[in-house]
């Protein structure tokens, strides 16, 4: 038996092992819940249809307007839409896990009282859905390259920037998912649509499908304060340096503040890291607060309807 106050490294390792096991189990459970009711082809179609259709809407919008700018923007919007499929699924993943387990399967209270860390279980479930979104994003990008004229040259891709921005970006998306889970712990059943609504709103300020410079200055400032725009900028630039910048550009807030037309790769990564850290911190605080309030008010086993 360990005396109180003594250090026991073995116990810490055991806790880490338990956490990892909970996480892996939650990911497997999430994946099973997502996909085990159907055959892989049907699931593939469901996963890919949404982002591909979203990209096609924008491509046709470009075609309708016509002009030389539309060719230049085709890669811009397809990459933005592909990455946005990951954002949408990542933001929704944890929130949907809360709503499904509370309202649908009515298991949330049992998950909460289980020995596993509650947040770790939710993260596992969220990562499973994020993976589905990521598959949709990759395939959208592939269709963009094959059929929609997106420029792709493996030799020109800046792989370190691509990998670094993707890693930080994905972590940020998961943090936003935690934030949405915190919100959905407090709200009623119809919160199913809330993550999509939040993702739709962030779509406006993230430069996913148009440069931020077109927005009013205060909205541009909001966009620069969120990490998603920096992630998409980093990815888009690493994928094809010929893509227009969504952050900078003539008359943009970025140019007004820094004097540069577009940010450098290092600046993009630093800004992504800083804004991502802030969002992650905010998400952690919000989740702790929300969970405490949910316990106080008996929201963990509340069910609603309309």
């Amino acid at each position: 038996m360990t005396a109180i106050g003594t250090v026991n490294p073995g116990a810490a390792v055991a806790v880490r092992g338990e956490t990892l096991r909970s996480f892996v189990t939650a990911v497997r459970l999430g994946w099973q819940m997502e996909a085990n009711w159907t055959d892989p082809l049907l699931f593939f179609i469901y996963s890919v249809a949404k982002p591909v259709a979203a990209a096609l809407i924008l491509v046709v919008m470009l075609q309708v307007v016509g002009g030389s700018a539309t060719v230049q923007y085709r890669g811009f919007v397809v990459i933005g839409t592909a990455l946005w499929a990951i954002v949408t699924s990542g933001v929704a993943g944890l929130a949907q896990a809360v709503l499904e387990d509370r309202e649908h399967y009515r298991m949330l209270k049992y998950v909460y009282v289980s020995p596993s860390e509650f947040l770790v279980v939710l993260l596992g479930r969220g990562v499973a859905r994020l993976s589905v979104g990521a598959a949709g994003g990759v395939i959208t990008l592939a269709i963009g390259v094959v059929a929609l004229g997106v420029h792709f040259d493996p030799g020109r891709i800046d792989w370190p920037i691509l990998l670094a921005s993707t890693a930080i970006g994905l972590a940020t998306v998961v943090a936003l998912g935690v934030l949405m889970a915190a919100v959905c712990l407090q709200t009623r059943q119809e919160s199913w649509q809330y993550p999509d609504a939040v993702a739709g709103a962030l779509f406006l300020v993230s430069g996913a499908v148009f440069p931020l410079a077109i927005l009013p200055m205060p909205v541009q400032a909001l966009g620069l304060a969120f990490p998603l725009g920096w992630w998409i900028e980093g990815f888009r630039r690493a994928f094809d340096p010929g893509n227009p910048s969504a952050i900078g550009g003539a008359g943009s807030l970025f140019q007004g503040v820094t004097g540069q037309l577009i940010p450098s790769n290092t600046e993009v990564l630093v800004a992504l890291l800083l804004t991502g850290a802030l969002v992650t911190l905010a998400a952690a605080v919000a989740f702790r607060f929300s969970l405490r309030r949910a316990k106080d008010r008996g929201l963990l086993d509340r069910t609603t309807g309309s």
Partner: protein
Amino acid sequence: MATGLDLVGRSGTDPRTASNWNRRQILLTNLRAIRGRAYPRYRGLFREKSWVLFEILLPFLSTAAFVFVYRALHAPEQYVGFVVVGGAMTAFWINVIWMMANQLYWEKSQGNLELYFAAPMHFMSILFGMALGGMFMSTTRALAVLVIATTVFGVSFAVEQWLLVVAVFVATLAALYGVGMVLASLFLVWGREAYHLGQFFLEPVYFVSGLNFPVARLGLLGALSVGFIPLATGLDAMRQLVFSGAPFPVGTPPPAVELGILLVMAVVATLAARWMIISMERRARIEGRLTVRWQ
């Protein structure tokens, strides 16, 4: 002395006589069921304050994103207006998918479905109630998006036939919610695919419906959409009516013809929903799946 049974207008106190309802009793019970099923949707608007942020303000921002795409491309202003109209109409489609199509599957999971089937009214009353409540919810959201976006982006409409606009709008809602009732029956048996099907019926349907761009641009696919998807038909008719004289691509039928298509869709969808819900109920009873949850 009046008994409880007398108070509800039944003709006798023994079970056989009491179960023999006249037409008025049947009609009143069904109307009460419609009102009762619509009520939580209407009342829910005032109970959940977060709804204002998540279902009015944020969807407006989503619509605004597409406005800025056109602004970035220096498109004619009518295209911006078209995005605003599309943003308003998507409120109804989203409602149809999540709160009509998916609803019976969720009701089954929550244990309400067997109560609906056991209650003494036609199941269509439940579907009508869901539709009316949903229309009310979505109308508030659509109006908010329309008013805010029109004000913020300075959209100007050029309407020459107001009566036709109103008729097309009402027919579009009737057709949309008719399709919603059909989908509700199907989703009931599709089970765990419900969420994924919901996602599948959003962006892909937006694309083939010509959301944010004139559906005529899609050629044959657009023509098929106008013939079979109420969102496409309604959007195209309204685009022609509220932006008269705008330089949109031509190729779709005139609004009066599209109104006719919408009316046919509404009637066919409602009849199909009635047939399907009866068939699905019978099939689910035979297979013992009415009360089987989470599958």
